[in-house]
């Protein structure tokens, strides 16, 4: 895939916050688990710091769903997945698709943390001609496997990716993150049926189970429960984890492909806006933009973690 090189950002310098961003890169491969977890914890903290400032500078973004998914993204890109910036052309690389594409800023910051994007590029988020569009585009960023934004696309694409891997006898795994509200889209269930029936063992569907959607709680809109039973009925091996616990996420991802030969569904229990006191589990923060004071408070809370 070649990216659209014509896109030269036309950046308003005043819109770019002066924020140092330390690229930690992958967790050391052979390190003891505690060290890996510490690496991921620090990376997630730095990613959240940068993310909130990007949203503030752009005046747009989906901070709630970004903060709920960051621990999952960081665990995948910095430890669990077999993919690196110099390996993007490798057909056997692990694949990742952010189906809830509105959390684009979380993906961009994580990609920068993992070395897939120059950190300076983060300053162009949503600026005219930027590659960092409000939703991730495969034609704009080499590491983005699928363009997403309209909910209900990523999982069917991931099923196709996993299907191709199975046809090729590849060991590669495909990870896809869907929102819980997103699971109201029927296309997901069509895809899950395909994945289950074809025993796509190398597919891992991660549900960012933060219990909120855009306007209300999922349970008050069109409830998903019993979610684990539904996923199991569609042929998944279902694991439930604390989606902010890097160690638990690592274990869940390490088990893919499952010995059963079935696809894995990880229900990652998260909080929208985690861990910021005034955002956490608060539906108002779906796409609210923080004030300068709120950014300062959030940064202070992140500092003290």
């Amino acid at each position, binding site marked *: 895939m070649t990216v659209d090189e014509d*896109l030269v950002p036309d950046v308003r310098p005043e819109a770019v916050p002066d924020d140092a961003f330390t690229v930690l890169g992958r967790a050391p491969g052979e390190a003891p688990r505690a060290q890996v977890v510490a690496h991921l914890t620090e990376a997630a903290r730095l990613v959240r710091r940068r993310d909130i400032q990007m949203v503030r500078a*752009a005046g*747009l973004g989906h901070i709630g769903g970004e903060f709920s998914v960051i621990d999952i993204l960081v665990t995948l890109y910095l430890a669990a997945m077999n993919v690196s910036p110099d390996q993007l052309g490798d057909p056997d690389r692990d694949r990742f698709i952010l189906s809830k*594409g509105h959390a684009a800023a979380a993906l961009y910051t994580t990609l920068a943390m993992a070395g897939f994007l120059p950190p300076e590029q983060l300053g162009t988020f*949503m*600026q*005219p*001609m*930027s*590659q*960092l*569009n*409000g*939703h991730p*585009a495969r034609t704009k960023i080499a590491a983005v496997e699928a*363009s*997403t*934004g*309209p*909910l*209900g696309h990523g999982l069917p694409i991931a099923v196709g990716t996993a299907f191709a891997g199975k046809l090729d006898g590849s060991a590669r795994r495909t990870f896809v993150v869907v929102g819980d*509200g*997103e699971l*109201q*889209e*029927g296309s997901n269930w069509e895809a899950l049926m395909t994945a289950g029936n074809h025993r796509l063992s190398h597919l891992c569907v991660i549900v960012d189970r933060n219990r909120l*959607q*855009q*306007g*209300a709680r*999922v349970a008050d*809109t*069109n409830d998903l429960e019993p979610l684990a039973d539904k996923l199991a009925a569609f042929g998944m091996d279902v694991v439930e984890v604390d989606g902010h616990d890097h160690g638990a996420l690592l274990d869940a991802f390490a088990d893919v492909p499952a010995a059963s030969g079935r696809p894995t569904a990880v229900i990652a229990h998260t909080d929208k806006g985690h861990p910021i006191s005034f955002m956490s589990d608060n539906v108002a923060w779906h796409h609210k933009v923080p004030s300068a004071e709120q950014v300062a408070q959030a940064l202070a809370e992140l500092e003290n973690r």
Partner: protein
Amino acid sequence: MTATIDAGASERVLHDCRDAWVATLVELAEADDRVVAVVNDSVGSSKLGPFAERFPDRLVNVGIAEQDMVGVGAGLANGGKVPFVSAASCFLTARAMEQVKVDAAYSQHHMVLVGQSPGMAYGELGPTHHSIEDLAWLRTIPGLTVAAPCDPAETAQVLRWAAAHDGPVFVRVARMGVPDVVPEGYRFEPGKAVTLREGADVTLVATGIAVSRALDAADVLAAEGVDARVLSMPTVKPLDEAALVAAARETAGIVTVEEALTSGLGGAVAELLVTRQPAPMRFVGVPDTFAPTGSVQWLLEHFGITAAGIAAAARDLLGR
């Protein structure tokens, strides 16, 4: 919400047409208890708060499920309700297109499809969230009325007309600020253009939020001695054939203007005129491309959907 911009010398009040949408819906629902709203987790973005408060039982929120939403709307119509199915235009049209085609249009259900924040209103959110295709796609569907009102008063009138019309109607409701455009006492009629400015040199035909921009372009052209006629076309389907044929005959040519792919209004007008009254044309809108990242204002500038861009197209047509 209203905002003001400094348009040269005069201050202009700009309106979000969603305010007129929800006020009209509440008014219609008060008068007729068959009126219901169907949404896809879009209560906030459809500005349905006042409706939700007043008629909580008549708000059907199917969640993030647009195909379900349009199908449920058709079923509600079949069950004797008058559904207003409201979602971001990009998802309402693109995701649920077959439901729009079959459940709404082919089945001729009395239902109103309300495409919120269309065109490039979601600017930086990108082409997935732009609804520049809606006019081009929907005008190909038989039996569907496709309306793009240009200001709050016209938005309210189209919705009232659609509530009473026994058939499917798509209404584009603009979020981007627009000034008041239609004259006092104006009555919306589908397939009826509104001559907002008489002119003999060239005709600007616009729809939706582009109408006020065409009027501004006519001012620019007037200052250069070009007398532009401005036709507002509130329905892309049906078109006002008589007004277009007359304009093609009486002026040097037609410039179409839309915040959409030029295969929407532009394509429709061209198809009509090529058989009825061939005339030189220029198309202002989005060409055959996915928009780059940028705010809606920046994108409108980028694609020349501005007074200057429209005036330039008219000059080009006139060979000036």
